[in-house]
């Protein structure tokens, strides 16, 4: 074991010089991608080794691991250097992106080594989202594969404009120029419409180092740069500073009454003390009084800097809003078209509500229209009702509140968002905004003088949406019907929206796939909302099997207006009753996607009213409902008159 360090011989001055030179180095972030076994991890291992980033103790560990898990015979298996997870080393595959760091005398590099397997595409996208250049590896024996295309398309969608086409394992095809030329030709054809500014093809052997850092003697026919030469010299700088000023407000810093600073990272452009800025969502204007920094105020700041701005006057700005240049403002809209890459094993369903997050803003959003899915092999636009994991599509999106944004093609920071599942909190998709939809700009809310309250008062009642959910045959319709009769008898104004009945009219065009079920619920929820707005007590009787859609319906209504009623009858009992003979047919396989049989039912976890029907009569259920509703009205009346406080 070595614990003796080389004596530090370098005098202090030369260290200072060295550090000054380091300071001026630029940074290039890139990723390696491509299909499984094209040698991505091996290439990174080679880069680290050739640039002397591997320490002796790491090399010793690598030699040990190579003997244990290696796939390269007696040679060192460089892939083991980057495949850092135990599962990866055991299976000999890359599961997640690894970040590695190296430097040459000219540049510093952060490399994202991304997995080739299709099932880990989301991890490749993670690596690509912060990269400026992609090395697309191709096994010279295999040529352009499906994953090569998928990764190239995703890289293009995520805004990468520079590609190195690394034709690897060229030693295994006898360093044959014809093979190289054919692959370059194929890739050029395929990627013509992907908007790459540069594609630099390099024939190489990552395992033996040909054309990685040193020029290969085996390929006299190749006169282009080695990989390192190209990485050191390629210009990827985008003139973010030249773009209009964009400052997404991340955090309002308010330590005391005398200081109110807006903290955030400048997404593009520059700001000088005294400049006019506009609040994107309100259009209100102000001026920059101070640019606050730890070591003293700044006169100016540019894209990429994390700063704190103090404005001249007390304009209303909070997290999620943006301070922008008055001359070139972003778009503010609640409907827009976007490219979506889907990550989750549960498919994207139009109509389902997701959480949409931009860098600092958050709202809920639904896909109103899935326009098409992109076939990664030939770019064909294919009609689709949902996006499965790792698929790419273009969608119209509608958000609950407007967001401020730029098209992604113009600004990689203000044009991007992620989608989050409301229940699991998983990051399920990434979006790149194409443009806003004009209808959002032209349709404004009509403000109406006669409101919900007045309409309900006239009926001497409080509006409510009683949402009955439960399996087919659980007794929803029977109870709903009886309940409405009772309400009607006491002079209440009601309406029943019944699943089967609505499917004969409004939702006649919908089937029973997951996507159609979501849309079915969305429409009914919107109708129920209008009826509640009209002052009615609405009874919705729908199987509504997915908790995500019930939650979406809940969020549409005013607070306290949505009452989830779980009609809880066990599956066996429903199948036994089978009032419409549907269970018998479903269990025979004659009906597909039948809830409880081959389509899931997600029982409510915290329903306002939980009706356990076994051994009880429908009348008892109705009494329980009426009691609950009366209690609510009394409580609210007391609250409003102050009596309950």
């Amino acid at each position, binding site marked *: 074991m070595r614990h003796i*360090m080389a004596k530090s011989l370098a005098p202090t001055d030369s260290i200072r010089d060295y550090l000054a030179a380091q*300071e001026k180095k630029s940074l290039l972030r890139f990723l390696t991608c491509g299909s499984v076994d094209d040698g991505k991890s091996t290439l990174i291992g080679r880069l680290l080794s050739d640039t002397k980033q591997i320490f002796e103790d790491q090399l010793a560990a690598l030699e040990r691991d190579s003997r244990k898990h290696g796939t390269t015979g007696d040679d060192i298996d460089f892939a083991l250097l980057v495949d850092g997870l135990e599962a990866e080393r055991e299976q000999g595959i890359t599961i997640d992106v690894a970040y590695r760091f190296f430097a040459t005398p000219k540049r510093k590099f952060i490399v994202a080594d991304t997995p080739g397997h299709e099932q880990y595409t989301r991890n490749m996208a*993670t690596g690509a989202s912060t990269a400026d250049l992609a090395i697309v590896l191709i096994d010279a024996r295999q040529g352009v594969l499906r994953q090569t295309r998928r990764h190239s398309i995703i890289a293009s969608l995520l805004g990468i404009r520079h590609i190195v086409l690394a034709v690897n394992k060229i030693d295994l095809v006898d360093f044959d120029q014809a093979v190289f030329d054919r692959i370059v030709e194929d890739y050029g054809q395929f990627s013509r419409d992907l908007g790459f500014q540069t594609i630099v093809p390099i024939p190489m052997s990552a395992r033996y180092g040909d054309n990685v850092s040193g020029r290969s003697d085996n390929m006299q026919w190749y006169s282009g740069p080695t990989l390192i030469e190209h990485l050191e010299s390629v210009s990827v700088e985008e003139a973010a500073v030249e773009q209009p000023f964009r400052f997404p407000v991340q955090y309002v810093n308010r330590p005391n009454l005398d200081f109110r600073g807006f903290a955030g990272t400048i997404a593009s452009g520059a700001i000088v003390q005294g400049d006019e800025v506009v609040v994107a969502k309100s259009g209100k204007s102000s001026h920059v009084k101070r640019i606050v920094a730890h070591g003293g105020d700044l006169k100016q700041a540019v894209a990429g800097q994390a700063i704190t701005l103090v404005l001249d006057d007390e304009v209303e700005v909070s997290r999620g809003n943006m301070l922008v240049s008055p001359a070139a403002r972003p778009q503010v809209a609640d409907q827009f078209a976007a490219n979506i890459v889907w990550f989750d094993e549960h498919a994207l369903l139009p109509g389902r509500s997701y959480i949409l997050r931009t860098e600092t803003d958050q709202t809920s959003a639904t896909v109103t229209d899935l326009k098409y899915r992109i076939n990664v092999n030939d770019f064909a636009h294919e009609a689709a009702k949902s996006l499965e994991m790792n698929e790419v599509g273009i969608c119209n999106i509608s958000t609950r509140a407007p967001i401020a944004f730029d098209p992604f093609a113009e600004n990689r920071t203000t044009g991007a968002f992620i989608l989050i599942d409301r229940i699991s909190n998983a990051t399920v998709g990434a979006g790149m905004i194409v443009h806003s939809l004009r209808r959002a700009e032209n349709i404004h809310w009509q403000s109406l003088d006669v409101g919900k309250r007045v309409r309900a008062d006239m009926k001497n009642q409080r509006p409510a949406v009683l949402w009955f959910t439960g399996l087919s045959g659980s007794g929803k319709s029977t109870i709903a019907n009886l309940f409405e009769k009772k309400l009607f008898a006491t002079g209440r104004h009601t309406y029943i929206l019944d699943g089967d009945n609505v499917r004969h009219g409004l939702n006649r065009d919908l089937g029973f796939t997951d996507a159609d079920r979501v849309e079915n619920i969305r429409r009914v929820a919107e109708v129920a909302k209008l009826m509640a707005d009209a002052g009615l007590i609405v009874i919705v009787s729908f199987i509504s099997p997915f908790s995500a859609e019930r939650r979406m319906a809940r969020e549409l209504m005013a607070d306290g207006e949505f009452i989830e009623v779980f009609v809880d009858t066990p599956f066996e009992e429903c199948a036994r009753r089978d009032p419409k003979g549907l269970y018998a047919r479903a269990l025979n396989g004659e009906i597909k996607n039948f809830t409880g049989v081959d389509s899931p039912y997600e029982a409510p976890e915290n329903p306002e009213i939980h009706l356990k029907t076994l051994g009880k009569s429908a009348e008892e259920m109705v009494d329980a409902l009426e009691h609950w509703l009366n209690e609510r009205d009394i409580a609210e009346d007391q609250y409003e008159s102050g009596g309950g406080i």
Partner: protein
Amino acid sequence: MITALTHLQRLEAESIHIFREVAAAFAKPVMLYSVGKDSSVLMHLAMKAFYPAKPPFPFLHVDTTWKFREMIAFRDQMAQKHGFDLLVHVNEDGVRDNINPFDHGSNTHTHVMKTVALRQALDKYGFDAAFGGARRDEEKSRAKERIFSFRNAQHVWDPKNQRPEMWKIFNTRIASGESIRVFPLSNWTELDIWQYILQENIPIVPLYFAKERPVVERDGMLILKDDDRMKLRPGETVENRLVRFRTLGCYPLTGAIESDADTLEAIVGEMLTARTSERQGRLIDRDEAGSMEKKKREGYF
């Protein structure tokens, strides 16, 4: 007007962005303060991120009771100087059972006094986000970890199922009991850290600088005899040697290196010619293959 930021400016801005994101999105964040050089940089960045306010979260030190005495003195001095809210947590069960690195080995000691202690502290205060100073260049499983790294209610990291992390858009949503470990220094290298310490003149524990210190050679490492709890084995002697530390942890588990680097410049100069990685001096990484990943899955930082 400046147009492009330098490498360090970019790293600094990224870290500050991460700090602010956590302050804005979480109810109860905490910063894990381990007193080492990375913690010093982390603290400096936190001060910058919220200036003129103080960082809006407490600093937590998980004390294994085996840290170098100079680290504890430095910790208290920093807390006083910057006025941050310092919480110190010790696993009292481990103290009661007299868990220590000499009798129980690094594995058990680290698990009880560090990993379990950390989980205890996070549960006790109900923190929903915890900053740590880990860097991706330190170790291969760290190289795979997200900046915002999800932990379930049992504090478990699932490396095979991490949330995608796109751009600078962080998914900060968690259910009750779950938490996020946040690593603002993810993209910094060891050299970047030293360069930044030099540039910003950030105070660090004096143990990083070479000095004559009483050390014992044991299992191929130079261990500083920091107090009387370390008993000499037959044949061992205490020698005064000119040494310093590249990383700091529990003194019985942290090897010193012979060096005469007593200034920051000299340390950087030495680093540039280093032939071994900094974690080489840390016993805990070598116990078994993939040992860091295993510890991290159990809740270690």
